[in-house]
């Protein structure tokens, strides 16, 4: 099975959020960058499990500048066979999807795995856009994935419960919690990652159709109103009469 895993780099989950250049760009100064948790814990690890059980290859792909290289090395250390970086500075999700589509279109991947969303952009867009550009089926929030022969069996949370679906490969899948367990790279993996191939490819020309114009921090929260423990019932009263939310 030929598997492609989409890897994106995001600020650490505890990173301070602030902006620069007149609030038009994220201030990454002093921030620790990590692999987007959905990409690392679920998409990549499930891809590796399938490869280990059924044979094949796992290629990781990232669209971004050379500042992504540590993130890519981590994917290799966890077990990806090789990595591709498309050297572009995307303005929005569509540009990411277009770059990956240009790369993937004649490579015959059986399975393309991405995260259900990035934890910084929160778009949940790239996987579906890529699937449309490649004319493949896509499911956005998959918690369980099995592959038997040419057929994937997938479980997704939908309105009203869990939906079990079957899809003939190839397809694109947005990976969510439940699909696999996080793997910590070991020393051997980290050493091996140094010699695995990282192919840097030039960006394809794309048209910009959307961009983030500016950022804002939410207004500061008002001080919390404390209710003494002995009068705890008063909370329900206040939620009803004052906040009017119950």
């Amino acid at each position, binding site marked *: 099975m030929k598997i492609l895993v989409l890897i994106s780099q995001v600020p650490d*989950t505890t990173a301070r*959020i602030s*902006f620069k250049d007149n609030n038009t760009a994220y201030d990454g100064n002093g921030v620790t960058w990590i692999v987007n*948790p959905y990409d690392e814990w679920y998409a990549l690890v499930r891809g590796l499990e399938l490869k280990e059980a059924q044979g094949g290859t796992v290629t990781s792909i990232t669209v971004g500048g050379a500042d992504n290289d540590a993130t890519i090395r981590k994917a290799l250390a966890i077990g990806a066979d090789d990595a591709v970086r498309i050297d572009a500075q995307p303005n929005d999700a*569509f540009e990411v999807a277009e770059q990956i589509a240009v790369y993937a279109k004649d490579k015959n991947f059986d399975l393309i795995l991405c995260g259900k969303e990035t*934890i*910084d952009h*929160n*778009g*949940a*867009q790239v996987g*579906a*856009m890529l*699937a*449309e550009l490649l*004319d493949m*089926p896509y*499911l*956005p929030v998959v918690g369980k994935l099995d592959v038997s022969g040419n057929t994937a*069996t997938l479980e*997704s*949370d*939908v*309105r*009203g*419960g*869990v*939906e*079990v*679906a*079957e*899809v*003939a490969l190839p397809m694109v899948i947005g990976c969510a*919690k439940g699909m696999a367990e996080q793997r910590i790279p070991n020393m051997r993996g980290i050493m091996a990652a140094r010699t695995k191939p990282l192919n840097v490819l030039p960006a394809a020309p794309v048209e*910009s*159709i*959307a*961009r*983030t*114009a*500016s*950022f*804002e*921090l*939410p207004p500061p*929260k*008002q001080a*919390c*109103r*404390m*209710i*003494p*423990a002995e009068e*705890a*019932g008063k*909370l329900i009263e206040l*939620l*009803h009469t004052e*906040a009017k939310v*119950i």
Partner: protein
Amino acid sequence: MSVLVFIDTRGEKVAKAVLEALTYGRKVAEASGTTLTAVTFGDAGGDKLAALNANKVIVARAVGSADGQQLTKLVVSVAQSEDARIIVFVQDNLGKAVAPRVAARLKAGQVAGAISLPDMANGFRVRRNVFSGKAQAWVEVLSPIKVISMMPNSLPIESGTGGAVVEEFNGDLGAARIIVKELRAAGAGIPLPEAEIVVSAGRGMKGPENWAPVEELAQLLRGATACSRPVADMHWRPHHEHVGQTGVAIRPNCYIAIGISGAIQHLAGVNQSKVIAVINKDPEAPFFKAADYGIVGDAFEILPKLIEAAKKLNAER
């Protein structure tokens, strides 16, 4: 020219998010001096569709399940016949399967998870959440056609007058490639993403055997239950209840957190709630900084008092 809204009308009740999307579409249509068309699929009755807040409802009855490719063809085809310049979706699991595909197909810029109406005064800008609710961004759409996926619970519903013209869609959408084998229905309660009131508990509850009062309070308040990540990881509670950065992101009107410390990754999934109430025995718990109401105390002593007060409230209303 028109504004188009894609909605899911399957099931008995029209979901709240559908009514919100129609309200959103109606407001955008009014602001741009045009009409609102809704596009949907499945077997909803004509009366139910005609009552929706739209000028026209186009329904593809032959499509029964949510296949992203069939639905993309449907929306793209209707968008062309209706000359739609703005297409509105809900940012839920169905919207995530269709909206980005439609955007890619039409080369239309997409605002995913919009929390405001578009500002059309200069250019076309919409506000959305980024960094898991820790900040907001204004996205500018540069293409002639715009796709907006609206975040549920981000504007009050207006019901409109009904009287929509209902039309059948009979075009060819190809065969479904996603074959639904089974739908395992969730428990009877309110689905977490749709709940307006959520009662959530964490490791402070000590063990799964102690959840009865949490469930009772949620039931009395007609809300849903949720939990922190370690609680789901230890299998004290089902995975779909896990809220936060790596779980479900919710934005109910009221979020009551019991025995949850308020780690930044937890807050990332709940900080969009309108009102947050926190019960924790540690006065230094970080959650109090994000809360509107707080009680410092032992959950096992506080919960019975809340249950009693909720019963009293229900008896009065």
